């Protein structure tokens, strides 16, 4: 397989995953805005969505306020926004197009069709009345492509690079969401389980599609430790940091098996995975959640870079 094509499927999957996660975040922002009366706190909520996805700086250069429609249109479809959801879908598609000979027709057609459908839906400004429908559509299209990958691709190197892309992106996204909201989870003596806090935690869980899963596992108990435990260390939850690292590790083993040898990236991954598994919730709060996440993000970047270098993504 060409190194450039490995890079292509890796990024195709990353962009799709990122588009989906941004749609989830927008969904949560929208939900909160609906349940809040005050304009000021609504704006704060939208701003925090921009901060989470790292677009607040560019946004505030262009706009002065944070009205909902202005923010979600910027994130979804603004032509000046190089990281808009539309642009990510377009990037996913152009990567898929460049690696057409490595992916199945089903995967290409699903990606191409997603692009066409979303381009049509995002060709006009999005209103509050159809935002929900569009966000559902983004999630559904990303799911369709993932399904096509799952159902039609050989379990070979191409599949492994695609999955590694998905889970590196997902690990990164879950960590960022946690980071922006970490103050909500800081144990506080003043904490009495007020309504506001509960709503914030709920938001956090919803943005990673983990609200129901969390409730199943924790029988209605809502506290910062359990939530952090769930998002970082739960091995069953498909968006937790541990889960993502386990997946990356197993897909990397697939590569080693096929190529008959491990690379430096495997060693880095093994170390990072082992450290994460040994981490307890107490360790996290001892280091500080924010610091823990910063360390995790740079570790994830390091893994991604090592894979790109070892498998010759670029010259």
């Amino acid at each position, binding site marked *: *397989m060409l190194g450039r094509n490995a890079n292509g499927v890796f990024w195709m999957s990353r962009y799709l995953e990122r588009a989906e996660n941004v749609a989830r975040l927008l969904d949560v922002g929208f939900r909160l805005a609906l349940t809040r009366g005050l304009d000021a706190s609504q704006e704060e909520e939208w701003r925090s969505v921009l901060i989470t996805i790292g677009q607040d700086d560019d946004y505030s250069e262009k706009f002065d306020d944070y009205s909902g429609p202005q923010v979600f249109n910027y994130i979804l479809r603004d032509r000046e926004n190089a990281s808009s959801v539309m642009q990510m879908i377009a990037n996913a598609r152009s990567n898929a197009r460049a690696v057409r000979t490595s992916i199945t027709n089903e995967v290409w057609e699903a990606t*191409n069709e997603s692009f066409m459908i979303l381009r049509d839906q995002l060709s006009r400004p999005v209103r509050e009345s159809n935002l929900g429908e569009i966000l559902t559509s983004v999630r559904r299209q990303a799911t369709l492509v993932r399904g096509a990958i799952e159902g039609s691709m050989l379990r070979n190197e191409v599949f492994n690079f695609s999955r590694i892309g998905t889970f590196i992106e997902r690990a990164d996204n879950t960590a960022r969401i946690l980071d922006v909201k970490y103050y909500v989870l800081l144990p506080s003596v003043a904490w009495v389980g007020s309504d506001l806090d509960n709503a914030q935690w709920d938001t956090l869980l919803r943005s990673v599609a983990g609200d129901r899963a969390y409730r199943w596992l924790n029988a209605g108990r809502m506290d910062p430790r359990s939530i952090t435990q769930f998002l970082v260390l739960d091995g069953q939850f498909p968006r937790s940091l541990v889960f993502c690292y386990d997946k990356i590790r197993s897909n990397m083993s697939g590569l080693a098996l096929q190529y008959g040898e491990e690379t430096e990236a495997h060693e880095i991954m093994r170390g990072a995975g082992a450290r994460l598994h040994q981490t307890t919730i107490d360790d996290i709060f001892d280091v500080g959640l924010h610091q823990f996440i910063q360390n995790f993000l740079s570790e994830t970047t390091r893994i991604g870079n090592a894979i790109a270098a070892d498998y010759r993504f670029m010259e």
Partner: protein
Amino acid sequence: MKSDESANYDEMLGEDGSIRPAYAGFREWYDEQDPRWLKKQDAEAERFFRRIGITFNVYGDNDAEERLIPFDMIPRIITAREWRKLTRGIEQRVRALNAFLQDLYHRQEIIRAGRLPMWIMRENAAFLPQMVGFTPPGGIYTHIVGIDLVRTGPEEFMVLEDNARTPSGVSYMLENRETMMNMFPELFTRIPVCPVSDYPRRLARSLRESAPDCAAERPVVAVLTPGIYNSAYFEHAFLADQMGAELVEGSDLRVVNGRVCMRTTTGYQPIDVLYRRVDDEYLDPLSFTPDSVLGIAGIMDVYRSGGITIANAPGTGIADDKAIYSFMPDIVEFYTGEKPLLPNVPTWRCSEPDALAYVLDNLKDLVVKEVHGSGGYGMLIGPASSRKELSRFEKKLRARPDNYIAQPTLSLSTVPIFTRAGLAPRHVDLRPFVLVSPNGVNITPGGLTRVAMRKGSLVVNSSQGGGTKDSWVLED
């Protein structure tokens, strides 16, 4: 440019309105169909093409980043007898093209014999000095050729153009057939049509047969593309996919230990045969355009030392140049010792004073083309031009007569297309695809029929709004 259809040869209808034998089976089927259902199928076809992503990019057209070539669902039909006759003419022409290239880059007997003027090479950018004295592996220059044919009567086929560099459009031949078989499967059970679907397999075989001596037991074939923004990217990816070959870009390749190698996830792996869809001038920054990022530094050295087969060979462009075209009847005769079976369209070389005088006198009736132009750009269609356009073109022509050739306005044959009002005749041409290897010449029964979608128009180029059709060769 407009023409009066009644004066043209209609490939479906005889002069008395009867159906010609080629179309008998098809018309019988067509007349049984519900017109509303046909309209629905027609609309479906476009959606199908968009979904699978057969689009092309048009140069200089930023808004329409990816356009679709219109597809017309009425097949263009050729009988087995007509096809046999055509293939003999095509094979003769392709053999002559290869012999001509071999000669031109070696002893130049044809020039010594006075059958071709020296200047035609000397002043031609398509002639590559780097190829002089070198014979490509297997002695083949043009591995893949597309011969553009037009028809003016029941037995009258003429060659309009030879495409000996990197002919494109073969993916449309294959996808058009695929689409037709999806839309109207019963047609193919009723009418015996020669299959075209094994073209990619034949192409792969033909390329492997042309591998250099140093090649692996099963030669490694790769398709070189300029990348996803190239207008024919879909076709490059399609062919690589169908052949099971890697689709590579210049940045994937590098010369390692005297071989051209591609960067795989586990290291550099040698390529034996490179089917390149990149023009000569971008192929090797060391030999040609220094700032080219599409090519591979040093590939020409590897090539000349026998380390790789490049298909088509660099420098084949000299054989399909429009200035050379006008000499093709002589070229065919010189190398085969036979009269050409397929005639040329009569052509005036404006570089010759007598011809220039004639062209200037008759500009309003002629088609004038740039010698090095392609894709229908920069040409004058006399009958369709205003007096102002004619006089402007006349100035250009007088300033650089050697840059132009002229041809009569042909009364091209028509084939029906599907319109909201039913079948309507439109002008067509035909590009059959020819494969050449040391083991022989192979012509796929069918080809790409391009059709002018507008009534009366003679311009079939996709860059100028032309469409395509499935092209059928009937089995005996």
